[in-house]
């Protein structure tokens, strides 16, 4: 036993010496080394290289995060050693601002050229919290419908036209589903990409909101909201043109082309998919569909304009960073035409600088050389909106999770849209009351906002 431990100990020691000896020590180049928490996307190297060319006194290294998971940044920031720059989502931004983690950019943004006026007005709300700016976009995303022309031709269905309506969409989808194809194959009309997103688009197009302007009441069971969710439900259960989650699971297990709407589309089995321009990043891996794609904005509802929810992966600065001043250079870089050009060329959604993406022609790249493909994304980003109305009285991430739960109940026919949204509104309102009752800081916000003295029965006397 002593021998076994001795040998293992020697192996460990040998490995330790080897590991330490072969490490390249950090270079003392006199530059400021910034840490950027983002995903390990191959295009980041190109983006960083350009930044270092433009700001020769600064360098950036990536502090990798699991794609979409903020746990690492939260743990690091809680102990005061967070990255200098971090990619954040809108609801995480609000929690981080409340925790004092993010730097208020407002005093520097206009002078440095990365204020909300330097990007799309449609995402302004997602960069701001309580009237102050905390982020600037790395990219912007607004979904359009990408369609596979080969499938439309196969079923003899005309391609979707700009300005099309929901009725046109149903007609086209029915054509794909029911017209016999020349190839003898059957196809899926539409790849679903999440019920909450569909409902949000409908809600925004109808001018609805999630909260009352004072944030004290949920508005998720307003007419605009219920009509939006009803529309989504009808597409699944009345018109049968969007697969339900049960249909999707069945298709995935029987079809043999993988699970998830995106895989169906990449595999050439689905005719339409609602997705952002970032879709083209992966196109080189799918030569079968490359060159056969068209794009159109999401269908209009009646006489309303086509509106989708805009989203952004945006960078914020750690307020405790010793290099926060240099990190401002990085945000300035994100607003530059040089950075946006890299985003255009790599197809990583829409660039943050609208001047670089003014038309379909401006977005042409080696992946998709057709300007008509890119043009609808410009229009969708300009006309899009963010679901930026929030309540200071409830955690935004919690509300997001509950929305998914209740939309899921509608998708699984456990509730009608009206029932689901009534229940969701009640749950949110109850939580707001509870939070107010428990937290004196929120009571102060309430008093400042309403000019009234807080009372636990406030909600009984207030008109929603």
């Amino acid at each position, binding site marked *: *036993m*002593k021998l076994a*431990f001795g040998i*293992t*100990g020697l*192996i*460990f020691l040998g*490995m*330790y010496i080897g*590991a*330490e000896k072969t*490490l*390249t020590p950090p270079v003392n180049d006199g530059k400021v080394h910034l*840490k950027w928490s983002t*995903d*390990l*996307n*191959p*295009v980041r*190297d190109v983006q960083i290289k350009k930044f270092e060319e433009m700001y020769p006194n600064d360098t950036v*290294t*990536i*502090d*990798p*995060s*699991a*794609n979409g998971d903020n*746990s*690492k940044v939260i*743990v*690091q920031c*809680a*102990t*005061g*050693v967070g*990255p200098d720059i971090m990619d954040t989502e809108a609801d995480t931004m609000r929690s981080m601002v409340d925790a004092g983690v993010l730097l208020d950019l407002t005093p520097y943004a206009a002078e440095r050229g990365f204020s909300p006026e330097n990007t799309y007005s449609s995402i302004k709300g997602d960069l701001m919290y309580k009237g102050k700016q905390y982020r600037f976009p790395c990219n912007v995303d607004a979904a359009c419908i990408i369609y596979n022309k080969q499938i439309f031709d196969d079923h003899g269905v005309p391609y979707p036209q700009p300005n099309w309506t929901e009725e046109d969409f149903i007609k086209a989808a029915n054509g794909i589903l029911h017209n016999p194809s020349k190839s003898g194959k059957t196809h899926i009309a539409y790849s679903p990409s999440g019920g909450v997103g569909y409902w949000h688009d409908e809600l925004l197009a109808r001018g609805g909101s999630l909260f009352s302007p004072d944030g004290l009441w949920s508005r998720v069971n307003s007419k605009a909201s219920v009509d939006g969710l009803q529309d989504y439900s009808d597409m699944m259960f009345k018109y049968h043109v969007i697969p339900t989650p049960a249909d999707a699971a069945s298709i*995935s*297990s029987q079809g*043999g*082309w*993988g699970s998830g709407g995106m*895989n169906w589309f*990449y*595999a050439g089995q689905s005719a339409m998919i609602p997705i952002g321009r*970032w879709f083209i*990043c*992966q196109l*080189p*891996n*799918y030569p*079968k569909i490359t060159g056969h794609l068209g794009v159109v904005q999401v269908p209009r509802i009646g006489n309303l304009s086509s509106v989708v929810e805009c989203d952004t*992966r945006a960078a914020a600065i750690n307020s405790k960073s010793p290099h926060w001043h240099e990190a401002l250079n990085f945000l300035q870089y994100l607003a530059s035409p040089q950075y946006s050009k890299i985003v255009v060329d790599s197809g*990583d959604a829409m660039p943050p600088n609208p001047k670089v993406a003014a038309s379909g022609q401006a977005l042409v790249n080696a992946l998709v050389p057709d300007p008509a493909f890119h043009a609808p994304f410009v229009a969708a980003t300009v006309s899009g909106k963010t679901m930026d109305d929030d309540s200071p009285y409830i955690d935004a991430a919690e509300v997001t999770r509950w929305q998914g739960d209740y939309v899921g109940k509608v998708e699984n026919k456990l509730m009608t849209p009206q029932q689901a949204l009534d229940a969701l509104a009640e749950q949110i309102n109850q939580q707001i009351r509870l939070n107010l009752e428990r937290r004196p800081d929120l009571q102060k916000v309430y008093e400042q906002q309403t000019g009234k003295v807080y009372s636990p029965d406030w909600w009984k006397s207030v008109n929603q």
Partner: protein
Amino acid sequence: MTKKTKTGELALSYGRLLVLALLGMMIALPFVWMVGASFKTLDQVQNVQIVAKHPTLENYPIVLTVKPDPVTHKMLNLQYGRWYFNSLFIAVGSTFLQVLTSALAAFAFARLKWKGRDTVFMLYLATMMIPGVVLMIPNFQAMVSLHFINTYHGLIIPAAFSAFGTFLLRQFMLSISPALDEAATIDGAGAWTIFWDIVMPLARPGIIALTIITFLGAYQSFFWPLIMLNNDQLFPMSVGMLNLSSSYGTETNYIMAATVMNVAPLIVIFIVFQKFLVSGLQLGGVKG
């Protein structure tokens, strides 16, 4: 025994075998799929067929950065060899230290008599009841204070102590007759000699079980290295493979090829030592 009873028993036995075979297939399927996917191109990975229609070996040299990616015509930004070594080094280091410290602590709790021993042991055990997530921030804060961020020490030293390992080995050591210690003491042996020459050899099944459990856990560890490191020279495989999954999309075929090579040592270790693992855990579980 009647013929009817025999037939019934036979049917029951076949039934059991069938259920076990089905369960075994369910457990094996993800592994088989992983190997199958490692021989597919990305567009073929979406297919549910386990065996690729047109299998390719290309994913392996691409992941090992011997060959460029056929789409981008560039080498992947991976340091596979370095990350593989790091995974093994971190696992070997954590395992060696944890088994050693657990054995020493277990010996103190099982074989030495000192005031408050059982109370201290109960307190020690109580730390197992605290979820790891709750300890994440305090542990990380400790690493910051010790300047262990972005170092191998920060990955190995926190894993060098384990209440579970101590508990497991203590149970083994309690099952060894105290008469052996007494006889050794009469012969002039000290505690150190009793530990190395009497108790440790007899606790071998437990030590092997703990070694396997610790090695597997350390080798697969993801979240702790993720938050501790931002220098890619120090990444273990689990963190390095994030390079293959980003907002650009997930290159499942490459991930599977990398994973097949990554899990190979684990499978070999498990197959070779599974007898000790099962017997070790059984023995440790019944002694009080």
